[in-house]
């Protein structure tokens, strides 16, 4: 699929339909519908148990116009491994058809319970694209903290308590874990930068054609309900996450790190925190220390990425 510069180059035909029950303002669909368009040719979706799964396949309805497989929570990568292996062998032995495999999983299903099956599949080298849409908590079960929940965020299992003000730990660096498997291509994507996102999917499509999978994308997926935020602000939050350097938009192309969105003058993190109820307690004077820790985390992460981007390859 060719790269685009303008959004009017995106085809009209949708492979993901209306009538699903994802919440108003959900950040997942903009990514899903783009993925299904930018990944060229026949494709099959594998979905971990998650918001996307339950809200798009409420029996007897489905929002999918492509074959779609849900097995369980922690095994989407393993399920995709089986489908890919079957496709390969049936192409050799019988009347098999070729198609591309896209896996969608949330942060719970990827950072936490599905990490082992993801690691196994990445190590074995199956040709698929795995997209983790990260809304930074177990939203499907009612906003519990996950390994993807950021420092200080209030969830129902890391509440803004009188003694402990939200999640005490930093977010797990999932991209680092994935890169440790030396995948051909890994990237972070963000809905506030749709052409960047499209072009990365287009690149993934080409790489899948060349059997260069597995490919991994980490998507910033705004969740107005879980983040206690105005539904209209989903994309605004995504943009601020990038502009504060909290969410670097970068890719790792055969080991070469490229920062796709340069953020020369970062906005203060408080601008990001203040629009979300999950962070509001952090703006109280007594929680200043948490915000300072968060700033340090952001700076360290960004500076480390800049240094790594100077290398010809980190592999």
């Amino acid at each position, binding site marked *: 699929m060719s790269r685009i510069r303008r959004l009017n180059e995106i085809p009209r035909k949708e492979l993901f339909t209306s009538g699903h029950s994802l919440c108003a303002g959900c950040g997942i669909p903009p990514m899903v519908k783009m993925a299904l368009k930018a990944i060229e040719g026949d494709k*099959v979706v594998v979905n971990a148990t998650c918001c996307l799964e339950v809200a798009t396949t*409420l*029996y007897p309805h489905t929002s999918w116009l492509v074959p779609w497989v849900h*097995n*369980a929570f922690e095994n989407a990568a*393993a*399920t995709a491994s089986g489908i890919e292996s079957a496709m390969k062998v049936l192409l050799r032995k019988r009347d098999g058809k070729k198609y591309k495999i896209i896996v969608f999983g949330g942060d719970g299903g990827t950072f936490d319970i599905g990490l082992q099956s993801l690691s196994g599949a990445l190590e*074995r080298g199956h040709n698929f694209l795995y997209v983790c849409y990260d809304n930074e908590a177990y939203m499907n079960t009612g906003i519990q903290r996950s390994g993807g929940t950021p420092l200080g965020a209030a969830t129902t299992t890391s509440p803004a308590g009188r003694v402990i003000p939200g999640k005490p730990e930093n977010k797990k660096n999932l991209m680092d874990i994935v890169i440790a498997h030396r995948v051909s291509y890994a990237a972070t994507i963000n809905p506030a930068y749709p052409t960047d996102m499209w072009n990365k999917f287009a690149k993934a499509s080409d790489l899948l054609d060349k059997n260069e999978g597995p490919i991994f994308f980490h998507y910033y997926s705004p969740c107005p309900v879980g983040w206690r935020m105005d539904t209209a602000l989903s994309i605004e939050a995504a943009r601020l996450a990038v502009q504060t350097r909290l969410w670097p938009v970068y890719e790792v192309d055969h080991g070469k790190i490229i920062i796709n969105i340069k953020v020369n003058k970062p906005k203060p993190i408080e601008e990001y925190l203040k629009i979300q109820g999950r962070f509001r307690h952090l703006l109280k004077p007594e929680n200043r220390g948490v915000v300072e820790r968060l700033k340090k985390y952001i700076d360290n992460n960004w500076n480390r990425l800049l240094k790594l981007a100077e290398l010809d390859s980190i592999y």
Partner: protein
Amino acid sequence: MNTTNKQVRLGLNGDEAVAYAAYHADVDVISAYPITPQTIIVERLSEFVYNGELDAEFIAVESEHSALSAAVGASLAGARTFTATASQGLALMYEILYIASSLRTSIVMALGNRAFSAPINIHCSHDDAYAARDAGWIQFFAENVQEAYDLTLIAFKVSEDKKVLFPSIVNLDGFILTHSVEPLNIFEDKQVIKEFLPDREAVNKIDPSSPITYGPLALPDYYMEIKKQQAEAFKSTSIRIKEIFGEYEEFSGRSYSPLKKLYVDDADIVFVVLGSTAGTMRTMVKRWRENGEKVGVLSLTLYRPFPSREVAEVLKDVDTVVVMDRSYSFGSPGGQLYMDVAAALNKYGKYNRLVNAIYGLGGRDFTPEMAEDMLNASKDPSIREIWVGVRG
């Protein structure tokens, strides 16, 4: 058709026999994780694949959970799919067992029966087979290495049959069968088998030209209808299983049926048993008959769907039914097979005296002396549960 000339006689252990059967079935995808006592199966299959003798994808997964998860994907995608496990591995697969059945996959699994931890033990109990009993998998029990080979071939034919479409487990007792070399007949090569087991023609397989949504969310308004359909479909598989047993007999010359009985018709005491111990019991019963004891043995080749009507029919006039369980169901009215037999008899209006014999746990040898003790205990009207050969 007489195809006995297309078979060769050789000595294999149970694991190797199963591996040969999967190889001869020209399986497409193998997804498995090593665990004693089934490991030889996946080692042999790896050799077939790595030496180019079998054109299959071997997915060397990182856990049994992923083994079955990948198998579900492969089976939905239309591949003839095989996995093997035991004990803890089956326990780790547990979540996916139900999904594999409910999505109507055609996976065949060899289960090298092994005791559950703790204490950890690598030897035979039927804990794993019993754990899977409610999950909607067809289950066969092999009594010897020949049966392990034959039932694996039969399982593929059954599971892929358009009137069946449920996954199958072939049980073989850990070490007793998995690691014991016995003489058996196997077919000469893959081509011979194609007559009995042609390439899989998958129903509803993943196909971009007809997009299907597999595994949606179904709530109280539809879940129960979906389960009722699955229940009725599973019950009805026994018809095809019996027909396929017949087809295999015609093809191989070896006869199979859901039940095997010896001296049951005029017996006062009948022992009901699964797996390799059926052979031991047959030997014992013959010996006891010579001493004038009116005893018999009933063993089950087909464990799920449970042949309730046939079991009740066979046992209807027997005074004492001794059900032998190589497992224990804590807090239940009896062992798992005991409860099945009791319910089957009750369902058809029979109220025999039932005794439950717990034997062979964790690979404890089941000796002729123990069998004698069991026979004697079963004659004592005050005894309803016997732990055979336990010290204390």
